[in-house]
């Protein structure tokens, strides 16, 4: 791929530019996480006819900052009987897993940290790392609730990886590429070129639209499960498991879990945006199209998906663990498989 990273053009490939490329998403994640936390607080408040945080800064917009400061100040408790190394390592591994996925996310046509050809594959491979972190944290805490939470989390992550993978695979079949930048480029033009509406092509693609819309929905639901959000938040199901795998964590390590959750939310939203919602493309053809607008569109779309995730969280109750498996294996998997076959047939017959 030529020209995937404007920094290479600007600065050449040296240690500084590499560091900058690495740190740009990190800075973005930190700022984004604060905004997402604020959004969660405020949206939940408005839905429930509350005002939400109002006393930190104007309209309480500094509340997430205050919360992070509070978490940093808090005592960092390590349970006496815990496995110290794993216990301390777990939050970093989870955050690393979430953060590493940013390597292939195309923020703009001129910026993707690493435009590798198997980007989607990489994302799925890296996504499983957080499962490892959860198990480490849950097991090392030496707490029964944590252990149960960790076990639930892993079974959940493994089950929902499959329908999500089918959804992504269908797009790979349609686009015949796994490079996320490539997939984004393919959807240039008006919004009906997005893969949620069957991707670019002639009017004959109308047959495939129901399936792609369904796949978008399937991917979105699976992504909720992968990020442990309501209604699939049973690993940390507050009413049963107190806080699930991070029951024993406090202070900065808890903040890492917190950040990782929001980073993960953005990752899945970004993938959804890239493969179904046209990535960094403007919905209106050439209007507001370009490298800088691309960043705007990409973040705007991804953030809207995050907002929907938040909105769902404050609407729905939580599944039970066997129902979660039912939904994963008996509803999402067959449906995604059907959609996958339909799309494959469409591509073959085209």
């Amino acid at each position, binding site marked *: 791929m030529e020209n995937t990273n404007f920094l290479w053009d600007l600065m050449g490939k040296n240690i500084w530019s590499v560091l900058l490329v690495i740190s740009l998403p990190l800075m973005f994640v930190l700022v984004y996480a604060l905004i997402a936390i604020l959004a969660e607080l405020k949206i939940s408040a408005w839905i429930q006819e509350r*005002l939400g945080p109002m006393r930190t800064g104007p309209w309480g917009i500094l509340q997430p900052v205050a919360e992070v400061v509070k978490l940093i100040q808090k005592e960092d408790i390590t349970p006496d009987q815990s496995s110290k190394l794993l216990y301390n390592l777990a939050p970093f591994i989870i955050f690393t897993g979430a953060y590493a996925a940013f390597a292939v996310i195309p923020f703009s046509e001129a910026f993707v940290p690493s435009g590798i050809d198997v980007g989607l594959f990489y994302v799925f491979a890296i996504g499983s790392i957080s499962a490892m972190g959860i198990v480490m944290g849950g097991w090392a805490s030496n707490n029964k609730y944590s252990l149960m939470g960790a076990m639930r989390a892993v079974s959940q992550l493994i089950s929902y990886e499959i329908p999500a993978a089918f959804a992504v695979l269908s797009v790979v079949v349609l686009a015949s590429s796994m490079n996320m930048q490539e997939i984004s480029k393919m959807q240039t033009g008006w919004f009906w070129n997005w893969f949620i509406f069957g991707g670019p092509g002639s009017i004959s693609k109308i047959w495939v639209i129901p399936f792609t819309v369904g796949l978008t929905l399937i991917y979105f639901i699976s992504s909720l499960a992968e990020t442990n959000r309501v209604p699939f938040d049973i690993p940390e199901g507050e009413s049963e498991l107190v806080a699930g795998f991070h029951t024993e964590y406090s202070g900065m390590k808890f903040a890492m879990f917190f950040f990782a959750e929001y980073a993960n939310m953005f990752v899945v939203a970004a993938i959804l945006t890239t493969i179904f919602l046209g990535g960094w493309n403007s919905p209106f053809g050439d209007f507001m199209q370009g490298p800088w607008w691309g960043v705007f569109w990409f973040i705007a779309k991804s953030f809207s998906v995050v907002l929907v995730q938040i909105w769902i969280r404050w609407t729905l109750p939580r599944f039970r663990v066997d129902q979660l498996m039912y939904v994963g294996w008996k509803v999402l998997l067959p449906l995604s498989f059907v959609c996958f076959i339909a799309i494959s047939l469409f591509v073959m017959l085209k």
Partner: protein
Amino acid sequence: MIQYFKNVWSGLSSTFLGMYITFKHLFVKKVTIQYPDQRFTLPDNARNRLKLEMERCNGCNSCVVACPVNCITLETVRVSPEDPHQEVHHNGNPRKMWVTRYEIDFAKCCYCGLCTQACPSDAIQHTQEYEYSSYKREDLYYKFQTLSPDQVAEKHRMYAELKAKDKPAKAEGATEEKKAKPEEKKEKEQ
């Protein structure tokens, strides 16, 4: 099979219905208020911290009897007629009892309002004040007596003098008092 799709559909549709309801609520006028800046007005009969008006209190002990948690401590001394310091109640009657100690432990108080109803002269009453938490329990121990310790000692001395003076007549007086008390109680019951 049909049931399966029905279930999937009802799951999706009820989710969307719920999301629609929550979405509507995003734009509803909020019901919470900014507490320390804005406040709700309390009703007049709100039962919060107690206050005592000493010029009304005649030391009759009925609040102490009514209190279910024994949070009121009351000590009284009879007023000596020779005391140059005499007080009148709000209604003009002369004070018969010096309240040398009137203390309420608000850590114990359960705000039931039984003392205010028992008080014959409306001396003890609830106020609208509800923010008086404190870091120490001792700070919740409110002292309502207006007499200084010196004055209290003085009153006690006066009363002792009075008793000493009445000593010859004490035997008669005591029996009279004892007789008088049950009669009063009977009247109250009626």
